[in-house]
């Protein structure tokens, strides 16, 4: 019987054979279910764990690196910022509203587990094209779910990104990033300790939500019969989450918690086994004490339920009464479900019988790991530009590009998100990065999520670098110093073809770039098996990054400010159509981002902003410099007039992409100061702000775009596509 069962649960025969070696006997059925979840890809990272060691994770300001519920960095004055990005891809493909909503709930609880108060959310979304009714449905429902949850818990959703591409038609990506604030000396960890200390379960009642979710959904590719996976998806309750946040933060502030852990994938099993293994202690849990929503739940169900909005606190017996009183005042259920022992075992009882009794480390540290095959993918083929005609009407091409879903205004999305709650949002969505004040400090944070997925498809190492530099440039454009990162690696099936190679290469490229700008990775997430029989996603390593701004009042925006301001192109990046939005596909061989050049540009940007020289800054990305100029013009309500060298062809010059370019504006008398700061970083004065059109002179010809026509093209797309 058990042989069939272990395979049903997703364990390989080899993995199943390991268990008796670790625990000295055959596992009970509840124990087997626990192993199947803890050793699943989603919980154990068995295919990626070793590769993640490449990331740079150290830095003088790192207080908590990877390994805890979230990472954290010191931001001065005794304050720390916690950050993490996490995926909820497969649940969102099955039920997009609840999948996206519970994804937000999960990442918020990861931050809360550090005792940190969540202060901002971002979401990074990828769906099929808007021509697909299914993708329109998934997208609109995911946005509604993110808004429903984030708005109700009162954490502002201040930024993010969305990409529409056919490669995500069968495997959408929903990644959520959360930032939290905590006193550096008040940070909580998950490790349990102290024999006799009590485990208190706080929050929603446990039901049959997500039974087996971790292994069923996250480790298997999606296929046509996903309808019957519907019961596995958890339903969100943001009101309870809000009470949970208020209560846990109060408990933490009153020093009533020794440790804190959230319940996510694999529920109580994962939460408690990690607490025990991290602390090198045992936990004795009475499943009868778990407050339940359903009758007659089997021990295995209670152990692996993924019911949402639950936290596990470690409490000293003399503080228990205060803890329970606080939970009661917040109208939250709370029960003592276990105690810390010295055995090192995860022991669970049900109806007076011991049903689980295994070393906690068997579930966590002893989980298997695998080397993935690293078969290199095809080399990128250089673009045959002579087969791509230059558009006859560049103005029309420009308007068309502005209206494409991956370029056009995302106002339709962010107006559905409360991006203001808390009254700390200095720069609202629409710019390069969100900027929020750090409450209680003079400083501010810039935050962004970015990924260069097409570049990764063509050259994963270069794309890894490009993703990091895109995030860092967006941060630097606000004047903030790139400070810390969290990664969310979304890839296809690592056991197939060149996915393993792509993953390793992307990690290598990201690491090279992070080292070049001294930004550590302090947390992260891996989501694999994002593919269907018909198509696999682009390698999509999402970079969530925060930057630190010394003076909250000194952030730089992307809007043109005053007529006659000088427009300056900084950086040595070369406009190329490879992998560009203009070409609209992953074609060509994009240039390998130059580590020194990108780092130098970012440094110059930060110094120039800090010196108060800049009126605006906007990096050149999707759509090339033509889009950069229009976006700055629309934001400021003023046009501009620039001249660019024609180069090889007009469309390449206007719409070509590459990294390592930022367009800034400044008062003309600030130019000498800017040149001095720029040093060896290429600097070209290309024109000036003014007028009601955006004019670009290329060689003998001038292309001119009327600002109002541009606004209509830019703002209409999402509203019309989703009406």
């Amino acid at each position: 019987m058990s042989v069939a069962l272990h395979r049903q649960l997703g364990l390989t025969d080899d993995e199943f054979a390991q268990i008796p070696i670790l625990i000295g006997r055959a596992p009970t059925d509840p124990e087997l279910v626990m192993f199947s979840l803890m050793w699943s890809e989603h919980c154990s990272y068995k295919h990626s764990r070793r590769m993640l060691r490449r990331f740079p994770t150290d830095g003088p300001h790192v207080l908590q690196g990877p390994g805890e519920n979230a990472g954290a960095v010191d931001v001065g004055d005794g304050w720390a910022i916690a950050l993490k990005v996490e995926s909820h891809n497969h649940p969102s493909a099955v039920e997009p509203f609840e999948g996206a909503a519970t994804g937000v709930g999960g990442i918020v609880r990861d931050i809360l587990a550090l005792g940190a108060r969540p202060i901002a959310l971002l979401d990074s979304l990828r769906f099929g094209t808007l021509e697909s009714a299914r993708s329109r449905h998934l997208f609109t429902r995911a946005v509604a779910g993110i808004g429903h949850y984030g708005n109700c818990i009162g954490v502002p959703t201040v930024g993010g990104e969305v990409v529409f591409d056919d490669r995500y038609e069968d495997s959408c990506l929903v990644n959520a990033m959360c930032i939290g604030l905590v006193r550096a000396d008040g940070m909580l960890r998950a490790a349990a300790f102290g024999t006799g200390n009590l485990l208190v379960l706080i929050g929603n009642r446990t039901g049959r939500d997500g039974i087996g979710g971790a292994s069923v959904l996250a480790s298997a590719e999606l296929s046509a019969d996903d309808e019957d996976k519907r019961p596995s998806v958890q339903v969100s309750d943001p009101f309870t989450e809000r009470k949970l946040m208020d209560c846990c933060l109060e408990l933490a502030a009153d020093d009533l918690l020794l440790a804190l852990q959230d319940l996510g994938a694999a529920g109580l099993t994962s939460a408690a086994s990690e607490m025990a293994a991290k602390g090198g202690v045992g936990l004795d849990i009475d499943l009868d004490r778990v407050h339940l929503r359903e009758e007659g739940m089997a021990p295995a169900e209670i152990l692996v339920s993924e019911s949402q909005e639950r936290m596990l606190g470690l409490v000293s017996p003399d503080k228990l009464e205060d803890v329970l009183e606080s939970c009661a005042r917040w109208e939250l259920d709370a029960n003592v479900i276990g105690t810390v022992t010295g055995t090192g075992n995860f022991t669970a009882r049900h109806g007076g019988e011991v049903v689980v009794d295994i070393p906690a480390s068997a579930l966590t540290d002893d989980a298997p790991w695998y080397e993935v095959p690293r078969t290199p993918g095809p080399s990128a083929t250089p673009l045959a530009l002579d087969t791509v005609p230059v558009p006859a009407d560049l103005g029309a091409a420009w308007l068309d590009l502005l209206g494409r879903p991956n370029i056009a205004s995302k106002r339709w999305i962010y107006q559905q998100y409360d991006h203001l709650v808390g009254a700390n949002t200095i720069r609202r969505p629409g710019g390069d990065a969100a900027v929020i004040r750090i409450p209680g400090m003079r400083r501010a944070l810039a935050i962004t999520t970015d990924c260069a997925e097409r570049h990764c498809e063509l050259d994963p190492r270069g794309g890894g670098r490009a993703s990091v530099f895109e995030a860092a440039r967006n941060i630097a454009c606000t004047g903030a110093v790139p400070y810390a990162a969290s990664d969310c690696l979304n890839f296809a099936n690592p056991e197939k073809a060149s996915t393993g190679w792509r993953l390793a290469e992307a990690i290598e490229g990201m690491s090279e770039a992070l080292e070049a700008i001294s930004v550590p990775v302090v947390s992260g997430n891996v989501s694999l098996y994002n593919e269907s029989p018909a198509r696999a996603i682009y390698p999509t390593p999402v970079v969530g990054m925060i930057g630190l701004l010394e003076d909250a009042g000194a952030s730089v925006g992307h809007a043109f400010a005053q007529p006659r301001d000088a427009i300056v192109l900084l950086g040595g990046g070369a406009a190329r159509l490879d992998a560009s939005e203009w070409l609209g596909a992953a074609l060509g061989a994009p240039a390998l981002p130059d580590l020194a050049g990108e780092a130098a540009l970012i440094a110059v940007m930060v110094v120039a902003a800090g010196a108060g020289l800049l009126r605006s800054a906007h990096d050149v990305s999707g759509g090339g410099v033509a889009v950069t100029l229009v976006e700055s013009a629309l934001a400021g309500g003023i046009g501009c007039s620039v001249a660019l060298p024609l180069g090889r062809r007009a469309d390449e010059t206007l719409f070509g992409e590459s990294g390592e370019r930022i367009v800034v504006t400044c008062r003309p008398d600030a130019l000498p100061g800017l040149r001095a700061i720029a040093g060896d970083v290429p600097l070209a004065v290309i024109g000036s702000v003014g007028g009601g059109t955006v004019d670009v002179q290329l060689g003998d010809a001038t292309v001119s775009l009327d600002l109002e026509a541009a606004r209509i093209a830019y703002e209409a797309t999402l509203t019309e596509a989703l009406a």
Partner: protein
Amino acid sequence: MIAVVRFPGSLDHDSAVRAVEAAGGTATYAWHADRALPAGTRAVVLPGGFSYGDHLRPGAIASRSPIMDAVRQHADAGGLVLGICNGFQVLCEAGLLPGVLRTNATTSFVCRQVELEVLDHDTPFTRDLGAALSIPIKNHDGAWYGDPADARIVLSYGMENPLGSIGSAAGVANAQGNVLGLMPHPEEAVDRLLGSTDGLGLFTALVRA
């Protein structure tokens, strides 16, 4: 002393306190389950948020909280009460203001800046305000529904009416003018760093009471 009432699910209570302080006053929280307002309360704020998750109807459950009896007594005695967003919903559900707030015409949450017209300067709240205020809205159920003949529409969205309110009502006062409810968030508009400071005047009015 300004009392800022806190319900389970209140979200904008802290920024309301900071807005009171920005206006030169002091504020303290009043807990929903208490039967009396804090000693020395001169004015009351019902802040924004999703009290009780907006379950049943926005503001419905919160409006039946024990603290609301004390708020009602304070209002009946002429004390100032400012209800912001969810607070406005609570005041309508409690019968302290006419009408009800319904789902936005867009059937979606809407977060954006709006330009308000001050239509009625004859209340303690609006006496010293200019003609127009730039303040953000962020809500899902902000369409005021009621009889305009039976209500003092003090603040209006003007021609735009983004939420589908009857009479383009953004803010409504009771007959005496001492209770004001508005959907926009003035506490988000008291700090130059964040944009407009047009919201400060409402808090100054509370502090002066």
